[in-house]
């Protein structure tokens, strides 16, 4: 059974669907089903690979390519990768279905504006390409391979924003491309400095993390790699591109960009930067922890004063990325495992929330301003329940897996701050009090502004099931991850502990 190349298949099946999407005969329904199904198959393949192999530790796909001086291009799965890759595949599969009714509305709008955007086939081609590139990114075992996949995520997402986005979409698409590219290049410079001296693999062809490979390389390499991935992560100070890109992208793409793409920055920060520079990373961890806490609080404060629902969610993503960074910065098994779990939780939760924003946009002709909403829960019980579930994910309220990831990240932060002394312990607790308080406040304040109080939207009605159905699927996955938590948490803590050592 170990001869089946599950991981390559999980990329090739969506690729085949993307290419098939270009065939002229297919209608939008067939396209949605084809692409969604291919991504669902990808998710199942990942699940199979995880259950059979990855749950025990790093497993490499039997198919791998030796690239001479550039090392080996292989695909790996382990509990960390599974959490990320599976949540990407599952989210994109559901959002592919959601895209159909949503983009129907968007195409109408674009036609109304007089813009001529490429049609359904181009949309789904780019969409699935984007999705599979993200899955490939996290499974890669080699820096160059990682970079190739990363570039592959950028181009389709750039085009999706430029073709179908809102507002000044071309300008925003270029801004997005430029800044994330700057981040990727900063990372690449650092990575090349390490790679040319020590090699480009960060997981050996035998399936072991090459821990400490980069130690002794020039210090700027570490700093550049962290900075580059932080731009992707949109940490405080380098978050300038995110509110624009995520707010103005077509909503299904926002639902992928926001939780999936940016979270990859955190995942790879551990898998590449920590693995190459374990002791430098540990030495830098207090600074990273402070940066993470500042990002949490700053994102929360920004979200509090937004009135555009999508922009509010974009700032909330910045705040959530702070939690991911906090888990990593704790350099403890629980904290890092919590980061990976929170990636999954945030993927489901934020996809649902952006989905809800899209439901409102599609149902009420572009309504995004929360000050003009109110009382919608009465007429839209399903949408309101979904929004509540989405906010429960990101604020860590059971029965969603958010409570597990939040606990684990805090557990990591406590462990690290205890070892740093009483000042850090009290300071971190105080910052978390503010940060989590802000998250709760903006989340449930938004719930109130949109859904409670007297009805303030004319002609309010429940959206069609084709829009909220896929979101329900994602929310259900988040609840299922709460109940079936052991296979997600226990192996991850185990593997992270073996990488960190202790």
């Amino acid at each position, binding site marked *: 059974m170990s001869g089946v190349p599950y991981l390559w298949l999980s990329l090739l099946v969506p690729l085949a669907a993307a290419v098939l999407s270009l065939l002229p005969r297919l209608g939008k329904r067939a396209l949605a089903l084809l692409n969604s199904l291919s991504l669902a198959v990808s998710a199942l393949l990942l699940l199979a690979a995880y259950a059979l192999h990855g749950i025990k530790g790093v497993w490499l796909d039997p198919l791998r390519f030796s690239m001479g001086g550039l090392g080996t291009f292989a695909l790996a799965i382990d509990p960390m990768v599974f959490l990320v890759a599976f949540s990407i595949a599952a989210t994109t599969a559901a959002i592919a279905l959601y895209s159909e009714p949503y983009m129907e509305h968007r195409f109408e709008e674009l036609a109304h504006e007089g813009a001529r955007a490429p049609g359904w086939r181009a949309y789904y081609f780019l969409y699935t390409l984007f999705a599979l590139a993200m899955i490939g990114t996290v499974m890669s075992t080699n820096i160059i391979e990682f970079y190739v996949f990363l570039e592959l995520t950028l181009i389709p997402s750039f085009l999706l924003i430029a073709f179908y986005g809102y507002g000044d979409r071309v300008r925003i698409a270029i801004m997005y491309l430029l800044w994330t590219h700057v981040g990727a290049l900063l990372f690449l410079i650092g990575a090349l400095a390490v790679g040319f001296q020590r090699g480009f693999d960060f997981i050996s062809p035998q399936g072991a993390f090459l821990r400490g490979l980069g130690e002794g390389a020039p210090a700027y390499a570490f700093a550049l790699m962290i900075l580059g991935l932080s731009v992707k992560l949109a940490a405080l100070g380098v978050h300038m591109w995110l509110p624009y890109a995520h707010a103005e992208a077509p909503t299904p793409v926002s639902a992928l960009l926001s939780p999936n793409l940016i979270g990859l920055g955190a995942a790879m920060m551990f898998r590449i930067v920590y693995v190459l520079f374990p002791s430098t990373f540990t030495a830098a961890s207090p600074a990273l922890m402070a940066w993470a806490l500042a990002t949490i609080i*700053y994102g929360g404060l920004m979200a509090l004063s937004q009135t555009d629902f999508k922009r509010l969610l974009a700032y909330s993503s910045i705040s959530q990325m702070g939690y991911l960074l906090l888990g990593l910065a704790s350099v403890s098994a629980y904290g890092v495992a919590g980061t990976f779990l929170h990636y999954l939780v945030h993927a489901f939760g934020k996809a649902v929330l952006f989905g809800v924003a899209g439901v409102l946009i599609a149902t009420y002709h572009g309504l995004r301003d929360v000050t003009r909403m109110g*009382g919608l829960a009465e007429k839209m019980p399903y949408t309101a329940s979904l929004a509540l579930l989405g906010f429960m994910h990101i604020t860590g309220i059971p029965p969603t897996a958010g409570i597990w990831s939040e606990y684990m990240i805090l557990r990591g932060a406590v462990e690290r701050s205890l070892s740093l002394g009483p000042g850090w312990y009290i300071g971190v607790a105080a910052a978390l009090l503010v940060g989590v308080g802000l998250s*709760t406040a903006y989340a449930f304040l938004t719930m109130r502004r949109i859904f409670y109080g007297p009805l303030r939207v004319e002609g309010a009605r429940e959206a069609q099931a084709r829009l909220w159905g896929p979101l329900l699927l994602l929310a259900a996955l988040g609840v299922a991850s709460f109940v079936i938590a052991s296979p997600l948490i226990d192996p991850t803590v185990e593997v992270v502990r073996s990488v960190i050592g202790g």
Partner: protein
Amino acid sequence: MEKALALLSWLAPYAGSCLVLLLHRAGWKAKSAAAILSILVSALASTQAALYVASTGRELHVSTTWVGALSANVSVLFDGLSSLMALVVSWLSFLIAVYSYEYMRGEVGETRYWFFFTFFVGSMMLLVLSDNLVTMLVGWEGTGLASYALIGHWFTDEEERWVGDPGRRALGVPMWFEPSHSGLRALVFTRLGDVGMVVGIATLHTVVGTTLLSEISSGAWAGRLLAAGVLPAFLWLLFLGAMAKSAQVPFHEWLVTAMTGPTSVSALIHAATMVKAGVYFLLRFAPILVAAAAAAAGAAGVISDFLSSLALIGALTAFMMATMALVSRELKLILAFSTASQLGYMFLGVAAGTLAGGAVAGLAAGFSHLLSHAVFKAALFLAAGAVIHAVHSRFVDDMGGLARDMRLTALAFLLAGLSLAGIPPFAGYWTKDEIVHVAAEAGLLLPTLLAVVTAGLTACYTARVFSRVFLGEGHGHAHEPGPAMLLPYLALGLASAALGAAWPLLSQGLEGLLHHTLGAEEGGAALAHAAHHVPGAVEATLLLAVTLFLATLYAYGWAGVRPYAAVSRSPLLSRLHSFLYDRWLLNSVYYRVVVGGFRSLSSALSRYVDTGLVDRLYHRAIPLAFQGAVRAVSRYLEATWDRLLHVNLVSAFASLWRAFRGLQTGKAPHYIALLWAGAALLLLIVLLGWLPW
């Protein structure tokens, strides 16, 4: 296998939640039956388990691993404390659920109501019965979610659902609250505390390596935390969640406005679930704190200081809330203030009891009052619901003389009220007496004083509310509710009286059972505390309560005193009245300082930092710098180079070309002369040896 049935104590209500969801298309009867029966199953399972514990004297522990890394188990742990608590929670919830059947019939959101109701009960039972702190946290957060949903049940915010006086402002802050606003407040307030609690649990997990209560109860962690210098901070963080959930000052504000929920929900929150969770957490940890004090030299001082502070907070809460209850005009609001006040007593009881007589004394003092309060407060709220239904108003000004038409309701309210006021021989008398007693025993002067004064105030406001509602002049016609509503609170009122009558016998049994609480078996010793007994406290309490109760009852009920006019005439009194009526202005201060502060910080950051600095840097300054650089490069470098290549070089060639053209005269002699000159030049070069030949 039989033991595994005990899991139903929290599993059954959760199963009920799922069932209610599945039945969302069914009628009110089917949904209600599913919910009520699931809670009944929970109550029966708890009773069976509690009987096992009482008869064998051993704890009943069922546990299978859920998430190994977090030592989170699917479990029940019935020991002395949790058995008693589970009985109180499940049976009261059952009675309130029965009451809801009639009370909530025909209201909007049937599925939502029963879903969150059962979810609430399940979460509370889970948190009471968990054998580890992580699943306890899951239940804890579950109660938070359910309370949020139920407090905001009427989320469309019609005016009759509000709490407070519409139009009234204090320091410019509105003093009326819509259901959706109250729900938000409840969630944000309690979750603030929860962050501290999670940090505390994570600290224990880090130090002990597990979250199992049985491991933590040894208290060995105190030494390491003391050495790390974080023990006091840790204690405050760990109990922050309990303080917020149990509405201790300064976290009490959410509980008051939680009255926007249906009255059945108020009863549930105040009597059985939610606010009792904080007290329960404190009770759970009382023996553990005693063990921790013994485990490390130096820890005892920190822990007894902490408990003294907690006792003071409890006493202060009791006093402040009682003063607010004195002036409130809303029936449910008076009861809400009284709950917060009694919760203060419970905190005082646990802390002072543990200080004065060790773990079991703390457990007994705290839990006894929790029990008696649960019974009488459930009765009071449920009866209040019937009254509000009958007169269609939440203000006591619109009530009066209802005893004539609602005899049984008045009886239940009076029996429960006598218990609340601490009139012997009702249950509340015994349990409050015990708290004042241990506070005096522990030598806590200020808390004891506050507790005694508060007992007097409690008697006052209880007599006031009873006479304003049931005695005096009538306001039109009212009638008793149906049996599904009436029977639960009548039973609770009678139980409150019976509990009091049987208390001297019962308290022995309670204390005996509480001896079997985790961690309480070993250490019974009092924390080292140089106590000076405060004399006369118990006697003063009794005297104050009885005289003030009778005096107030006479004044309002028979003499027909209405102090509103007197208060509005005196500037001092009316200012005092407004101060108390506006809840010591704390709400306004929170809104102006905390909410307003964060709001202005948020908009200032958004304007000046995010748009002003970040946006301007990345999307103005950096592009402009690049643009400038491009312009400079193009002007100075590119233009010069361009001139060099496309002007200077070209014109150089052009002049060369012109020079050659000048030679082309077309006349033969010129050519010959040039030929000769060229040849001569070549010859010269050859002769000089410049060319290698």
